[in-house]
């Protein structure tokens, strides 16, 4: 009996050693994304985009000749869970490279963990400039900043002589970033924010808000929102016959679900996008086609960002010639490259400065790029059709 135990001990050691050797030959990339909770839809898209890159890079022979293995967890859309998971990824799973979570909210928390361990993190799903204003040296963004999201739409509104803006937004990092951008831009354009209100992450009923907005008769309704709240707001705007010349929301209208859930009511609603398959970027169409074949729908920018983040990592590791943290960090600072997601070029804080943003609008049941004109796939539809006349 004793001998048997000894044998098993020995076997265990051998297995552990073999396993360790195998692990040394692969590059482990860690990430957490929201697979449940408010950001689940967008989080999952981002993960699927990233997973496609993992498959492709392995088909190409991996990174530095080593196979790439992805470790991912669900952060439940919660910043505190995200922070814990990145701690686990770095200390327990001992990953070689890090990809950021989805949402500015969770990224704010997760990036403090990466900073603590001095571990560079490529962030796909975050755009609040707050993230890059803390003097951190390890967070590299792909997204155009939240503060600039509504610029094109406000400029367009200005060109049509619109003046009064109603602004509503969720009380977390990204929507607040969008809102502060809207306020600054409105001021510089000489437009007036006649109504402003923050709402909670779990808000589903905006009736009281809409009743008040109606009384102020704004020309434009602008929302710093995600998918569930923008969908609910538009539906309730219709129920309460809230009219304006422009309805514009962050995130929601950029996703296929927006049109699916609202049906005809999505018509004319504007939004922002970081990326669309129709953009004239090398590799964008190919990625979109492959994604569609695999997942059954056209990818939105969240999936595109996940895929792009993979390509950025790949470019950085190639440039660094190693997965060493210091070398990868330097490579990310120096990199100026174009992925299927667009240009990647950061400033000294790690903030994205190379990639422009785009404006979309739902026209005839499809999402079209309408601004800037150079990238437009349809002419902008103006003004927003009155609910009573639909």
């Amino acid at each position, binding site marked *: 009996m004793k001998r048997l135990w000894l044998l098993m001990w020995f076997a265990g050691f051998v297995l552990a050693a073999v396993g360790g050797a195998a692990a040394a030959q692969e590059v482990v990339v860690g990430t957490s994304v929201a*697979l*449940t*909770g408010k950001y*689940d*839809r967008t989080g999952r898209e981002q993960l699927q985009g990233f997973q496609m890159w993992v498959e492709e890079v392995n088909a190409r022979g991996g990174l530095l000749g080593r196979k790439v293995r992805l470790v991912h967890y669900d952060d439940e859309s919660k910043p505190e869970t995200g922070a814990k998971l990145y701690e686990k990824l770095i200390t327990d799973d001992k990953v070689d490279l890090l990809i950021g979570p989805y949402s500015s909210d969770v990224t704010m928390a997760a990036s403090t963990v990466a900073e603590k361990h001095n571990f560079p993190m490529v962030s796909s799903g975050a755009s609040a400039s707050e993230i890059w204003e803390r003097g951190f040296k390890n967070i590299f963004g792909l997204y155009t900043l939240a503060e600039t999201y509504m610029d094109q739409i406000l400029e367009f509104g200005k060109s049509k002589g619109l003046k009064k803006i109603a602004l509503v937004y969720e*009380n977390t990092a990204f929507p607040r970033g969008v809102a502060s951008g809207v306020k600054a831009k409105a001021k510089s354009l000489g437009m007036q924010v006649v109504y402003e*209100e*923050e*709402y*909670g992450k*779990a*808000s*589903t*009923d*905006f*009736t*009281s*808000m809409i*009743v*008040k907005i109606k*009384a*102020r008769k704004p020309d434009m309704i602008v929302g710093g929102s995600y*998918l*569930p709240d923008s*969908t*609910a707001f538009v*539906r*309730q705007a*219709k*129920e*309460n*016959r809230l009219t304006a010349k422009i309805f514009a929301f962050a995130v929601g209208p950029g996703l296929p*679900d927006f049109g699916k*859930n*609202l*049906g005809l*009511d999505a018509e004319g609603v504007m939004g922002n996008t970081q990326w669309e398959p129709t953009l004239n970027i090398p590799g964008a169409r190919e990625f979109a086609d492959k994604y569609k074949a695999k997942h059954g729908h056209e990818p939105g920018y969240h999936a595109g960002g996940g895929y792009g983040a993979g390509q950025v990592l790949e470019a950085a590791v190639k440039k660094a010639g190693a997965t060493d943290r210091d070398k990868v960090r330097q490579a990310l600072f120096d990199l100026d490259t174009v992925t299927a997601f667009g240009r990647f070029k950061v400033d000294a804080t790690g903030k994205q400065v190379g990639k422009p943003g785009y404006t979309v609008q739902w026209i005839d049941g499809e999402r079209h790029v309408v601004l800037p004109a150079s990238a437009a796939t349809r002419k902008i539809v103006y003004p927003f059709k009155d*609910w009573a006349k639909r």
Partner: protein
Amino acid sequence: MQELLDPVVLGQLLIGGLLAGALYALLACGLNLVFGVMRIINIAHADLMLVGAFAAWVLFATLGLNPVVALALVVPAAFLFGYGLQAVLIERVVGRPLLASLLATYGVSILLVNLGLLIFGSDYKSVPVWQGSFVVGEFVIPKPRAAAGAVAVALALGVYFFLERTRLGKAMRAVSEHPHVATICGIDTRRIRMIAFGLAAAMAAAAGAMLSMIYSFSPLTSADFIQKCFAIIIIGGMGNFLGALYGGLLLGVVEAYVGGVLTTQWAEAVAYLLLVLVLLVRPTGLRGAADVR
């Protein structure tokens, strides 16, 4: 703030509040019925609501049924589901320490949420029918909310009259007031409990089917609703059917006005502020019937 003196704005807030409150009431009535009859706090109550919402969604997506029409299928099915659930599981924890029933219903909740995630995923769903609104003078009344409000009031009152007027309803109240004496009087308390849980499940599912026309929902939506439900039954009076009705309507209206006067963020917290206030001033709730055994 000047728009708050406008009678149109005030009236519009009242309409919104009453319609939201009716749905809260329908949901909370079932929770209170179960608590009244068997002293069990059903944590899975809002998940039963989502069962109704998803059933309505499936019936809409496959057969194109309007959720109001779908009620004819959803309500009896939910009744049988609740009846069965009581027979198989909840009956085992009746009369046991409170923790046993809390754990059992919490288990049901986890099971239902994860079944929902497995079958439907966590995407937000909604049933886009009857979008838009009626215009009455200066006021707008959203169609789906009006339908939901009417259904909620009709069902809640229906169950109320059932409890007040019918023999079975009286038996149910007898079990609620004193199960021991009810047994001695020859009432089959086990059957009464199964019917009560069935009714509660049916009301929850009806609320869910109505909710599917108004909000987007996913299997994880239940958490917000169950918390509000608890607040409502404590505000209205634990175990008192009418208390839940009043509590629901009250919460809807107060939320609407707080949202109007202050902000939506305050409106979300008001259920709990109201709860604390009621507990301080009138610890037995508005209808003051809760007795401690």
